[in-house]
């Protein structure tokens, strides 16, 4: 692991701890408004100040980590699962399955702006956390399926797979017991980069009013609420704090992904 990915791990670990222990760390209720104390600058009472309705920015950003990580984990987990199955079947069986998956689905999903598909889906379904997760999974599985398909194509030619086949193992056994465990390494890289993508997409859609509905303390919602001119002028920290949180977490997951890729592919080391 290189220095940057260690830094990424520390940041992600920090966000995970913060999300897990949010109720203990937060100093105020996330929904508690205090109209006498709007736009307050950071102080002892409000460590990171307050927003346009006097809510505590520190507590909200802490709880926001929960939403971001939850969306990220669910989306990455579900997309990986679906992508692995589809990609593995396409790579192993080839033939018409592969022609549909590789020839059609991959091309369509690659040629289409994923974010736009998510926006369109949520626009028709209505906003909400679960619909957001559904939309992100639908655009997310393709990346994993591509990686797994390529790996399975490679691994299925190895001698130990031929040996298993000669011993009479079933297709499912060969695929899930012999091939997949040897094919999933690059998925870890993809999953790490996928976390960055999911966290960013959640914030983007929430910012556009298509994700987690306010007043939930999603980082995207906090940004949207902090960007009108009067709030921006009076309380720039209300924008800066969730902005830094998003940028840091995206950066951290990307660092980890890059580091893992380098680690798994020694040819890239030292570049």
């Amino acid at each position, binding site marked *: 692991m290189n220095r940057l990915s260690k830094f990424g791990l520390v940041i992600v670990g920090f966000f995970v701890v913060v999300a897990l222990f949010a109720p203990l760390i937060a100093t105020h209720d996330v929904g508690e408004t205090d109209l006498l104390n709007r736009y307050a600058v950071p102080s002892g009472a409000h460590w990171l100040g307050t927003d346009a309705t006097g809510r505590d920015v520190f507590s909200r950003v802490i709880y926001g980590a929960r939403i971001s990580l939850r969306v990220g984990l669910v989306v990455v987990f579900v997309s990986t699962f679906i992508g692995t199955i589809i990609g593995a079947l396409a790579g192993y069986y080839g033939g018409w399955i592969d022609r549909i998956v590789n020839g*059609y689905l991959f*091309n*369509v999903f690659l*040629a*289409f*702006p994923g*974010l*736009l*598909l998510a*926006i*369109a*889906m949520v*626009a*028709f*379904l*209505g906003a909400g956390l679960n619909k957001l997760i559904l939309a992100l999974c639908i655009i997310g599985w393709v990346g994993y399926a591509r990686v797994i398909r390529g790996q399975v194509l490679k691994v299925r030619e190895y001698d130990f797979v031929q040996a298993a086949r000669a011993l009479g193992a079933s297709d499912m056994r060969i695929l899930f017991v012999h091939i997949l465990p040897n094919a999933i390494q690059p998925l870890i890289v993809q999953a790490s980069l996928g976390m960055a993508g999911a966290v*960013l997409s959640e*914030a*983007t859609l929430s*910012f*556009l*009013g*298509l994700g987690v509905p306010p007043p939930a303390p999603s980082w*995207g919602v906090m*940004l*949207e609420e*902090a*960007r009108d*001119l009067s709030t*921006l*002028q009076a309380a*720039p920290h209300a*924008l*800066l704090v969730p*902005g830094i949180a*998003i*940028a*840091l977490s*995206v*950066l951290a997951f*990307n660092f980890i992904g890059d580091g893992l890729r380098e680690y798994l592919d020694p040819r890239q080391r030292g570049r």
Partner: protein
Amino acid sequence: MKHKLLDLSRRILILLLVVWTVVSLVTLLIELVPGDPATATLGEEATPAQVEQFRQKHNLDRPAFFVSYARDEQGQRNFRWHGMNNRYIDYWSTLLHGDMGRSFRTDRPVIELIMQRYPATIQLAVAALLVAVSIAIPLGVVAGKNRGTWLDNVLSVVALIGISMPGFVLGPLLIYVFAIQFGWLAPSGRYHWEDIILPAVTLGAALSALLTRMVRSSVIEEMGEDYVRTARAKGLSEKTVVYKHVLKNGLIPVVTILGLQLGVLLAGAIITEKIFNWPGLGLLLIDDGIGKRDYRLVQGCVLVISVTYIFANTLTDIIYRWLDPRIRVS
């Protein structure tokens, strides 16, 4: 030659398949609306007569697809064949007539609303591209020439920050600094020529960071080539070597990325337009389409944005293959 034609026809086939999928998706999306799109548009207090009139006018009373599998009066589910008389065919036929139906809210043709906004989006995307290139090339060359020095490290960190800083964080920050603190530029709108500066920088920042990294590694790679040693040996100045020889060759991969990124810029423009109230397609989609539940308008916007994206990508790909013979073979 045969190989080339085969490759081109394969690309066009994929292109047509993708466009067909997008149109189908867009047509069927409206079925996702919970409840009835007519009630969703007109509101709960609309009379049944108004709802019926609305449904008739926008063809919502017709079957959605060739077949349906809906419950009848007795609550029994069964398959029904509707023939060609359905909304899927309707939408295709309006599209092929160069139309996109009428907006649910304003009753104006959707294509007209879109065409009014299209130039602003293209203008923004092109301006962002220019911003990205004019930042990335000098920075990338400086970083590549000074590989491993503190300057290179500083530029790498800046590029990383640029890549991970989403537009909806950078945009409001730029508004805070340049519109509120200094008062140099307007915080939103599209009235004067300088109004494009902040949106273009916001949209182009991530791309310029990505390009800087690409130019840097490209320059480093080319600097090790034999022709650079030759150029130096014949006494050319370092400046001529870098800008006339290295950059010329190093820019080839950068150009491809640039074309592919045009599509990403179009998608990113949706958010940038929202931040700066820039009257393009994205703002039309988010504010007038999604915000006012004008589903016909949403269909049109999604369709136009995706088709533009798809064509930009395919065109870049074809031009690139044509420019660089090495790729045609591999």
